[in-house]
């Protein structure tokens, strides 16, 4: 392996320090290949991951563990154009999406 990203799991620790994901409906904006989604999805009630890059979304779908398939959904969508239900999520997570 040539690269290991955050094996210390600093990011995971921080997101769980800031948010209690248990039983929450989560909108994951800029989900990419699901790198961050998997750090909290287990605990949630549901996750909708959006990303404008189709290849990333396809990879996220492929990477979805079987036991999470019933509650994690990924869509190719740009947040600025997405038709989202109003007041439907407990948490909106933006991982490196505003930059």
């Amino acid at each position: 392996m040539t690269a290991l990203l955050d094996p210390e799991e600093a990011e995971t620790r921080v997101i769980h320090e800031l948010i209690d994901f248990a039983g929450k409906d989560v909108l994951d904006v800029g989900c990419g290949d699901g790198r961050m989604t998997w750090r909290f999805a287990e605990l949630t009630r549901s996750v909708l991951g959006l990303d404008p890059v189709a290849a990333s979304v396809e990879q996220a779908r492929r990477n979805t563990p079987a036991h999470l398939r019933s509650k994690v959904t990924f869509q190719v969508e740009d947040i600025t154009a997405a038709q989202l239900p109003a007041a439907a999520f407990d948490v909106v997570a933006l991982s490196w999406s505003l930059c």
Partner: protein
Amino acid sequence: MNALERMWAALRPGGLLLDIRPAPERPWVQVWRGENVTMVGQIDDSYRFGTLKVADAAVQAVVAAGRVARERDVTFTYLYHLYSVDAWLEYMAEHWSSALIPADVIARAREALPPGVEGEVRILRIIRATRLRRV
């Protein structure tokens, strides 16, 4: 409607917005050989600073409009581990190509971690995570 307004509308009242992104600081590069650490310099990714400033202003605007309240900021270090200088440069070319790596930084890294020597290059990236709550 901009991105933050759409997210605000999608949140239930009292819902939380988690914003994670790099801080506007140039990442440091270290070479580790056993317990010995050499700071070889910084990556120049200042191209991103303007975008980060725009993002800060956008967040500040929704806070000022009373739509969300800033609750907590946490800053942490995100580490990249790469097991040779060439692996580091390949990673940068593939995933972080807009960043500039000064030639003297590469030279110091090669001096500190010659080919065939066991060790690693670490990139230390400062990340800021902010929790905001829909008012």
